[in-house]
């Protein structure tokens, strides 16, 4: 019996390790390729480790893409989208969960329906609005589709629903205004949901490719993802440069992930279902 147990444990480890290698390998291959010269990459038979670790592709890709701009644009886009999603969704989530007002059901239905419709259907008019205002190729246009979040509203409403009414009533009777009840008493209680929404918004804004390709076509005003697609179409045969660019583009998020790993996984697990 004991032996059987050890055997199955070994099998589980073996399966997980094989899986983990498959998950990690592309990233290692990215790094190894980026550290080779283009000549070495095209060699037959191929080398696994670089003959000489050569990091000139990293310098070259900095010349080809304005990484400073791309980091800044992506960072600001994520920052503003997270702030807007958290602030506006908290306000609306609180109101939908704890207040009664005329038309509440109608407005909440609006939120639910919007959340179910694929976002691509809105892109053409969203683009035409931004273009009509002459605001393409700005940080505003990057943030624009993420100014409000139906999903965030729905998700934070759940969080406020989970807080007993007595807590809110007690604070209110103790002399807090409605605004204070919300900001000082209830909002802090939704901390873990707010963190989850922030992570969710950041990860998906960072991953989005379609909108920056549509709205911010100027290479200096676009995001890391869209920058990579430009690199991909212009230098499609220089793999060390492409891999160096990809590594640089993924680095900030991976570092954040390694530091806040638990928050990322739990946050995304909490918001799961989108």
């Amino acid at each position, binding site marked *: 019996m004991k032996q059987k147990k050890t055997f199955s444990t070994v099998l589980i480890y073996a399966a997980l390790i094989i899986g*983990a290698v498959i998950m990690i390998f592309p990233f290692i291959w990215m790094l190894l390729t980026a550290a080779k010269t283009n000549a070495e990459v095209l060699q037959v038979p191929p080398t696994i480790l670089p003959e000489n670790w050569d990091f000139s592709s990293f310098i070259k890709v900095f010349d080809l893409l304005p990484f400073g701009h791309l980091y800044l644009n992506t960072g600001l886009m994520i920052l503003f989208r997270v702030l807007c999603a958290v602030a506006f969704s908290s306000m*609306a989530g609180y109101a939908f969960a704890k207040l009664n007002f005329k038309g509440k059901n109608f407005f909440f239905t609006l939120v639910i329906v919007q959340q179910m419709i*694929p976002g691509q259907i*809105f892109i*053409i008019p969203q683009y035409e609005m931004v273009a009509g205002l002459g605001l393409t190729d700005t940080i505003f246009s990057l943030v624009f589709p993420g100014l409000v979040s139906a999903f965030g509203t729905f998700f934070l409403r759940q969080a406020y629903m989970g807080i007993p009414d007595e807590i809110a009533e007690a604070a209110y009777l103790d002399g807090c205004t409605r605004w204070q009840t919300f900001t000082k008493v209830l909002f802090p209680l939704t901390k873990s949901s707010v963190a989850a929404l922030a992570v969710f918004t950041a990860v998906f804004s960072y991953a989005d490719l379609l909108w920056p390709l549509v709205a911010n076509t100027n290479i200096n005003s676009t995001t890391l993802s869209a920058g990579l697609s430009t690199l991909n*179409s212009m230098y499609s045969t220089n793999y060390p440069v*492409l891999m160096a660019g990809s590594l640089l583009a993924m680095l900030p998020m991976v570092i954040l992930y390694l530091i806040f790993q638990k928050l*990322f996984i739990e946050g995304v697990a909490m918001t*799961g279902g989108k």
Partner: protein
Amino acid sequence: MKKTKKLGQDNLWGYLLIAPTVIGLFILNVYPFVDTIILSFCKSGVFGGREFVGLENYAEIFGSQEFWQALWNTVYFCILTVPVGVFLALIVAILLNAKIRGKVVFRAIFFLPMVVAPAAVAMVWKWIFNSEYGIINTVFHLDAGWITDPNLVIPTVAIVAIWSAIGYDAVLLLSGIQNISKTYYEAASLDGCTKLQQFRYITLPMVSPTLFVVLIMRLMASLKVYDLIYMMVGEGNPALSKSQSLIYLFYRESFIKGDKGMGSAIVIATVVLIGIITAIQFVGQKKWVNYEV
């Protein structure tokens, strides 16, 4: 005496608090939704003028080989990614649920692709699958045109999509599995059930609501696939017509060719298709999803 102060009843505060979201939804979603429908009945010029053409755009897309091919490509991609991807994710979740060391590390590794932009993911896989110098062809002495052979492109992209999503789906399924009360397993093993029987009669039915959520989510994401194909296949690839998805076709019509009327018709057809497929899933779930706890 004044009436008891009630927190709940207040129209003004309610409207003030929902105002940013509701106004935003009207500008960003309600108006664009209506506008896209109107636009799908129009021919749009390069300079933004619109001319009403009735059902012409729809007639054109339903009569075009390219649209049906893109529709098939999208459906084929879903058939490949959704069942296999969710099945593998379930296996990973079960393995991660075992009593083992280093669980957190494994979970973090499987989840990693989720925080890497699909653009970067696509780039490295494109290199791995490169037909001349890619590591897969050279190591296995193959000569496969993974991303140039029209018959192979979608399966190749599907592999990458599965690889990208497996950790995310596994994390969701794992939290579903961990919510199952231990007492069921204790009772079952006292009654002499094998591990396999426990999986079949306890884990699977108890996790079925989570499994359904993951399936729907993966299906909707797969129906909207765009970025991996755009990055891995791209313009000028001879296999493009055999691999472009509906959303990719939408992007090309609307923003590369600049025909926003056609683009609108394509995106509406796509959204209707997604709606129909999702509705079928919701009807079908009654047969296998177990909501009794």
